[in-house]
């Protein structure tokens, strides 16, 4: 099940979707918006998606997981719009007969979501805002690195 939504994510409901008698292990990952990023305090965040491309990229990832591991039951949900600190932005629930595969497939999914799915995150600070991964962000990152470099 793939779901991209502006509504709050219900991790428990998504987890129960993948439960079945053949599965002995369920791994659920929650991506949670955090207060501090690179030493700056985040006030809130916004997520934006290119749809339906984002939906089909998530479905593609679920397909890759099924090809690589014996996992059948997968739920992936991504939140959009404004999120407060501490809210859940991503839920991945994976079930498999044995735990090893569920862990591996879940980790693969989270990594992959951050690589190929056209969803963007904007962080809002007291003194500005930045699209994570954008050129502005890279410039800020370089500045932060060079300021801690000795000499």
């Amino acid at each position, binding site marked *: 099940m793939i779901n991209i939504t502006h509504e709050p994510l219900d991790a428990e409901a998504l987890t129960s979707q993948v439960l079945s008698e053949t599965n002995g292990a369920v791994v659920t990952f929650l991506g949670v918006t955090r207060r501090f990023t690179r030493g700056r305090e985040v006030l809130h965040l916004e*997520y*934006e998606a*290119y749809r*339906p*491309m984002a939906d*089909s*990229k998530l479905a*593609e*990832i679920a*397909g*890759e997981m099924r*090809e*690589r*591991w014996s996992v059948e039951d997968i739920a992936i949900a991504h939140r959009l719009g404004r999120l407060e600190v501490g809210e859940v932005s991503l839920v991945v629930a994976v079930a498999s007969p044995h735990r090893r595969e569920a862990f*591996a497939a879940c980790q*693969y999914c989270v*990594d992959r*979501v*951050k*690589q*190929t*799915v*056209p*969803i*963007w*995150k*904007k962080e809002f600070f007291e003194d500005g805002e930045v*699209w*994570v*991964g*954008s*050129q*502005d962000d*890279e410039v800020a990152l370089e500045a932060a690195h060079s300021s801690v470099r000795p000499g």
Partner: protein
Amino acid sequence: MRLFASYRERVGQAELALDLPEGATAGSLATEIARRFPDLTRDPGKLVVAVNQEYRDHGYGLSDEDEVALIPPVSGGSFESWGLRPAPHQPKNRRGQP
């Protein structure tokens, strides 16, 4: 063409009309975008283009009816650092160790 996130804000529009010559490719579109909006990127070769909602390399030929979008780096970091740029996304060829 469609613009999202940082690109949309830089350009100030979510959609942009571009006149491209016959035989235009994703790469020639990227070059044109970089010429018109130089502060969008330092290198047009790094612009990621989606055609009809699929990542395409810069050699990909464009047609009139195509839905074209410029894809800024996603929230995990830059496409380049994952070796995804500018090649199309081909998961089947990327099957490494599980």
